[in-house]
Structure formats: structure tokens, C-alpha cells
């Protein structure tokens, strides 16, 4: 038997110019915040933007952006709603924000389903908020979305960077483009920049720990006023 959905995925993202996967080897480094803020800033910069929360088991971009009570529409497929100027897609539309424990095959099936029925239309950037690690989500995104480029997030901690190194090594082995590394929640001195350069990966910038971010959760306008957002704004310049 043949799964017909695989034939249509490339067609669905044909008019998406760039796919940026915000990724890390570790959880808790600020991927979702960075992906959300990046998407907001790009949308404000008059780019046509989509944000796809690929963290099916622990989605959080809707909490960061204060997205609730909206659903996609149907037009011979699923059309993501426009929120804060960006097309937003997440499993929460269907899970009602309940827990969705998924093993690998189920994750892959859910991803294939959403990739094959979601009509993104014309986009300059599709920002993908990735779950941590080099498991199913990362492998499947590489498998199905050949134009994906990875933006890597780490903290200053060697614990985070060691996992990031593994992720970057894998991406390099597979010939997947790495846009660069962002050092988030920086509090003191570190050597992430030198380490990234040693690996031949571009260092996109550092973001200091900003306690105001926590108070902005759920409010996109407040988020954009934070130091965090202003530093993400500097990173945006590297992408456009």
C-alpha cells in the first residue's frame, strides 16, 4: 500500500521561500520564545510569515503569543488563521490543548498529515518551532522539507552546547544548511562564540537573560518591548 500524502508535501510548500527551523539539542533554552519573536518581528517587517509549532507533545508558542479561541478555515485543505500578522499552525487546534502523548510513528503521521493538508500559500519565511533533540521531529523535517535551514539555539552552559554540537554535526553530515548559533539567556562570560566558529558555524549573536520576558508571556505586544526581542531583532538582520 502507498501513502498518497507523501506526494503532495512539496507542492504544499512550493510557494514558501524559506523554512527556518529553530532548533536545539536541549529543551529549555528558549527555542519557542525565539521562534515566536522571530516570526513576530519578521511579520512586522512586512514579510509574509508562517509559524508552525512542531512541538506536538509540548506546544507552547500559543501560550507565548496569547493565541486562543481561533481555528483554521477549510478551503480544499486547511488554511492557517492569521494571528498577529502571521499564519499560525499548531496541534492545539485539534487537541484542545490537552496532552497528546505520541510515539515516533504517530508523530511522523501527524507531521505528514499537517504538511500534506496545510495550505500555507505564498510565504517569505515559514518559522518552525522544533522540539528539542535529534529525534523524530528533526529527522522528519529534514526528510520531508528539503528546503529547511536550521537556526540553532543554546545557552551559555556546556550542558546545552554539548547537545547542540551533536545536532550541528548531524546536520553537517546530512548537508542541511545551518544559519548559525544564537546564545540565549547569557548571564556571564562564555566561549560559545569561539566554539561555534571552531565548528565552522556562524555565531548570530547573544541574548542576555531578560527577566521581563516571563511577564510578557501571553502578550505579543509586551514581548516585543523586551530586551530579548530587541536582540532577536539584531538576529533578524542576518536572515533577511
Amino acid at each position, binding site marked *: *500500500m*502507498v*501513502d*498518497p*500524502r*507523501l*506526494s*503532495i508535501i512539496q*507542492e504544499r510548500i512550493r510557494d514558501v521561500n524559506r523554512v527556518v527551523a529553530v532548533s536545539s539539542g536541549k529543551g529549555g533554552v528558549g527555542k519557542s520564545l525565539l521562534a515566536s519573536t522571530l516570526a513576530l518581528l519578521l511579520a512586522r517587517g512586512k514579510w509574509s510569515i508562517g509559524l508552525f509549532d512542531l512541538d*506536538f507533545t509540548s506546544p507552547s508558542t500559543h501560550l507565548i503569543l496569547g493565541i486562543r479561541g481561533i481555528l483554521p478555515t*477549510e478551503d*480544499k*485543505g*486547511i488554511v492557517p488563521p492569521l494571528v498577529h500578522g502571521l499564519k499560525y499552525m499548531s*496541534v492545539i*487546534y*485539534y*487537541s*484542545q490543548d*490537552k*496532552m*497528546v*502523548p*505520541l*510515539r515516533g*510513528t*504517530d*508523530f511522523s*503521521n*501527524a507531521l505528514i*498529515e*499537517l504538511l*500534506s*493538508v496545510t*495550505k500555507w500559500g505564498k510565504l517569505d519565511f515559514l518559522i518552525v518551532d522544533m522540539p528539542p533533540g535529534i529525534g523524530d521531529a528533526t529527522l522528519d523535517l529534514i526528510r520531508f522539507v528539503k528546503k529547511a535551514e536550521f537556526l540553532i539555539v543554546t545557552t551559555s552552559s556546556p550542558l546545552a552546547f554539548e547537545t547542540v554540537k551533536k545536532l550541528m554535526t548531524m546536520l553537517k553530515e546530512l548537508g542541511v544548511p545551518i544559519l548559525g548559533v544564537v546564545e540565549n539567556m547569557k548571564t556571564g562570560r562564555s566561549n560559545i562564540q569561539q566554539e561555534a566558529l571552531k565548528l565552522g558555524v556562524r555565531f548570530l549573536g547573544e541574548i542576555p537573560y531578560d527577566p521581563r520576558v516571563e511577564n510578557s508571556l501571553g502578550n505579543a505586544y509586551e514581548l516585543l518591548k523586551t530586551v530579548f526581542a530587541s536582540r532577536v531583532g539584531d538576529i533578524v538582520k542576518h536572515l533577511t
Partner: protein
Amino acid sequence: MHEWALAESVIKTVLKIAEEKDIEKVTEVKIRIGEMQQLEQEVFKTALLQLRPIKLNETEFIIEIDKTKLRCKNCNYEWFFDREVFGEEVLEAIHFLPEVAHAYVKCPKCGSRDFEIAEGRGVWIDSVKGLRKNG
């Protein structure tokens, strides 16, 4: 409708298979649909007929529905998906994305949500029959 997006993928895949197998005239396509996804058969069939290119003008689309069997990974219990126990909103969510069933379904024996959709998920092309170019 969501059915149109899936029908589009079927047409594209059938054309690809026909090209790979050197089939000039596709006479029959058998499609299996998992009960869990609750596709509206009439809408799906209408979409297939309207989306098909001239090359598939004489193709008969046969649709068969498979019951959805779930298997608990925790205790190995197997059971069939029963739509009658869910409200419209949940059924619609599962229709769009069957994997979200993990949010609404538990193993009737042990209560775990760690189950797999063992049979009857989504849309599959079972067979493509036709006449080859060389006869």
C-alpha cells in the same frame, strides 16, 4: 474541504505510479480509508472525479473502509475505535488529525494513552490497475 486535499494527494500519487509502471491507461484505483478519519466518502469521491486529469478519465475509484484497530503499548490490549462515544467536536478534531486521539482515548483495559493505531488510519492507495503502453 479537507477531503479535497487528500484526494489531490491520491491523484498525484496515482499519476506518479502510472508513470513509474509505464501504465498508459489507468482502469482502476483501489483506496482504503481508515474509519477513524471519518472522511465523507461522497465529498472525497467528488473531489477525485473533479481533480482527475484526462489521463484518469476512465478510471474507476473503488473506496473501501477499514475498521480502526487500536493497540495498547502498555498492556497489548486491542480494541476497535468507536465513534459513538465521542461528541462532534472531538470527532471533528480526530477527522483532521487522527493522532490527537491520544488526547481523548484511553486503553479500556489499563487506562493508558500509550496506544498505537494498528490498523485503519488515514488514506492508502491499495492498488493501481491499468494497461501498459506496450499492451
